[in-house]
C-alpha cells in the first residue's frame, strides 16, 4: 500500500541549487506559540526561514460593521473585546474619540482614575507579554505563573471596581461608570507599594539569564527607518530607539502632569523589546504612585446630554495603549449611530514587519520574534 502523501506541507526545489529543497510549512492556526488563531506559512531552507507569509482572519467578526449598527454608547462594551487583555485602555480610546467630537469635559477625579486604570492595564499587559515570552523561550510554566500571580491581584482590583475581571466596560463619555468602592484606593496603594519587589525578583531571575540572552540578543533586529516607515508603534518602536510615546508626544487626558521617563532601546532586537517592557512597568508604577497621591475628590461624571449625537463630520483620535497606538476614526452623519467606525489596531500594523524580522533566522527564532511583538488576535482580526 502507498504511504499517505503529506498534505500539510509542500516541497519545492531550491531556485539556485536544485539539489536542495525548500519546504513550506504552516505554523498555526493551532500552534501553541501563536497565542490565538494565527497562521504563518514559512518557507524553509533547512532550518532557515527564506519567506514568511502571515494569514489573518480566523477571529474576524467585522467589529466595524457591528459598530455601524449600534448607537454610540452601546459600542463601549464591544471595545472590551478588541484587545481582551487591556479592556480599560480600549474603553479610554473610544471614549476619547467620542469626547473629542462632542467637546465633552471630563472631571478632574475621573481623569485621575482613568490614568490609574490605564497604567494598571499596562502592568497587566506587560506581565502577560513577558511571561509568555519566557514561556516561548522554553521556560515553561514557572516564570509565566509568577507573572500571572501578580496579574491576578490587579484583576481583583478591576473586578472590585467594575464587576468584571477582563471585560470591564468601566468608562463612559464624560467620565466613569461608578465611583471607586470604599477601600479600593488603599488596596491599590498596597499593590503599587509591593509591586517593585516582585519586579526586582523577576529581573534577578531573568535579566542575566544565559539562555534568554543567547536566544534573544541580536535576534530579529528591527531598524529605526523600517519601524517608522512600517508604522510600528508602542514598545516595539521604542525598542529601536525612537522616542515616540503618545503620553509625551501628543498628551491626552492629564498625562502632561506626571513625571515619568520613556525607556528606549538601542539595538532593536528581541532582548530590547523584552527589557523595554520591564522598564515601562517601573515607569507605570511611578505614574501610579503620583496619581494615587494626588487623587482629588469630586464628581466622576461630567455633564453629558442623554443622547449622544455628534454633528456630521470626521474625527481621528489616538491613545497609547500598551501595545501601541490605538486609534479610532469615526465618521458621523448626525444620527445616533456612527456612519463609519474604524479602529487602527496596533497589533495588526506592528505585524507588518514580521516577515522582515524573521527572514534569515531559524524557525525556532520566529516564535520568539513573534512573541516579542505582542499581539492579541481579538484586536488584530476584529
Amino acid at each position, binding site marked *: 500500500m502507498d504511504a499517505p502523501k503529506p498534505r500539510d506541507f509542500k516541497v519545492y526545489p531550491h531556485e539556485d541549487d536544485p539539489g536542495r529543497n525548500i519546504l513550506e510549512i504552516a505554523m498555526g492556526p493551532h500552534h501553541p506559540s501563536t497565542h490565538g488563531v494565527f497562521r504563518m506559512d514559512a518557507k524553509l531552507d533547512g532550518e532557515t526561514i527564506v519567506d514568511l507569509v502571515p494569514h*489573518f*482572519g480566523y477571529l*474576524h467578526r*467585522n467589529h*466595524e*460593521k457591528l459598530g455601524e449598527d449600534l448607537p454610540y454608547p452601546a459600542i463601549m462594551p464591544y471595545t472590551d473585546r478588541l484587545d481582551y487583555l487591556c479592556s480599560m485602555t480600549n474603553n479610554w480610546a473610544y471614549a476619547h474619540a467620542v469626547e473629542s467630537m462632542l467637546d465633552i469635559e471630563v472631571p478632574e477625579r475621573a481623569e485621575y482614575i482613568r490614568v490609574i486604570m490605564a497604567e494598571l492595564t499596562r502592568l497587566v499587559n506587560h506581565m502577560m507579554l513577558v511571561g509568555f515570552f519566557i514561556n516561548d523561550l522554553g521556560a515553561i510554566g514557572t516564570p509565566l505563573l509568577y507573572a500571572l500571580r501578580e496579574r491576578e491581584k490587579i484583576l481583583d482590583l478591576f473586578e472590585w471596581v467594575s464587576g468584571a475581571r477582563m471585560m470591564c466596560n468601566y468608562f463612559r463619555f464624560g467620565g466613569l461608570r461608578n465611583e471607586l468602592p470604599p477601600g479600593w484606593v488603599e488596596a491599590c496603594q498596597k499593590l503599587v507599594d509591593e509591586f517593585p519587589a516582585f519586579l526586582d525578583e523577576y529581573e534577578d531571575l531573568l535579566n542575566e539569564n544565559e539562555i534568554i540572552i543567547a536566544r534573544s540578543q541580536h535576534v530579529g533586529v528591527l531598524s529605526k527607518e*523600517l519601524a*517608522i*516607515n*512600517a*508604522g*510600528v508603534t508602542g514598545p516595539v518602536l521604542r525598542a529601536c530607539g*525612537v522616542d*515616540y510615546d503618545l503620553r509625551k*508626544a*501628543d498628551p491626552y487626558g492629564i498625562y502632561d502632569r506626571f513625571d515619568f521617563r520613556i525607556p528606549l532601546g538601542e539595538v532593536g532586537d528581541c532582548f530590547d523589546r523584552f527589557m523595554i517592557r520591564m522598564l515601562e512597568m517601573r515607569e507605570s508604577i511611578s505614574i501610579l504612585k503620583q496619581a494615587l497621591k494626588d487623587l482629588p475628590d469630586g464628581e466622576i461624571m461630567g455633564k453629558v446630554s442623554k443622547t449622544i449625537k455628534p454633528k*456630521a*463630520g*470626521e474625527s*481621528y483620535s*489616538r491613545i497609547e495603549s500598551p501595545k501601541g*497606538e490605538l*486609534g479610532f*476614526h469615526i*465618521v458621523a452623519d448626525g444620527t445616533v449611530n456612527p*456612519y*463609519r467606525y*474604524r479602529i*487602527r489596531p496596533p497589533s*495588526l*500594523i506592528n*505585524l*507588518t*514587519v514580521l516577515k522582515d524580522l524573521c527572514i534569515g533566522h531559524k524557525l525556532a527564532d520566529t516564535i520568539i520574534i513573534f512573541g516579542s511583538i505582542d499581539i492579541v488576535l481579538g484586536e488584530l*482580526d*476584529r
Partner: protein
Amino acid sequence: MDIDALLKRFPALQRDEKSDAVIAPCDIVMEVAEFLKKDSGYELDYLSNVSGVDYLPKEEKEELKKEEGEVETKIKEIPGYMEVVYHFYSMKNKGGLFVLKQRLMDRESPVAMSLMPLYRSAEFQEREVYDLFGIKFTGHPDLRRLFMWEEFEDFPLRKDYKEPDDYEYEPTAHDTVLEKSEANKSNK
C-alpha cells in the same frame, strides 16, 4: 498645517471643508505624499491609519423661494462615491495630524492609488480596505483579501451589502424556516 500653501503648489488638490482634509486626485496622490514626506518641511514620515468610507448615492431636497411666496422644491441627486482616508503624523517633529483623501467617483469598481511604495504601514491596511470595500489599489504588490476567505465574493463594509441567505438551516418545527431551508437547497 498650512493647507493653503499646499493647494497653491498642487492646484489639482481640493479642500474638504467638512473634515479639514485635502482631497487628491488619484494620478497625483503619490506625488503629493512624496512631497509631504520629504520636501514639505512637515516631515510626515508616519502613516498612521488608512480607512475606507463608502457614501451611497442620495437625494437632497433643495428649496428655491420664488418671489410670490411660492416654494419650489428641487430634488438634487448626489452620486455615490468611495473615499480612502489617510492619517499622517510626523515622528521626527511630533507633528500632525494631516488628513489626505482619495475620492473615487466610480462606486461599483473603485480603483485607487496605493501608497504602499512610500509607506510600508499601508501594506495590511490597504489590503483590509480592499477586502472590506472592494477598492483596488494600483501599485500594491500583494493585494489579497486580509480577513475574509478567498472564495468570498462580496465586500461586507459597503453600505449596500446584503448578507447572503445561504445558511444551512437546522430542520426545526417552524414551517417558515423549513420552507427557507428547502428553497435554499433547491437553489443549489
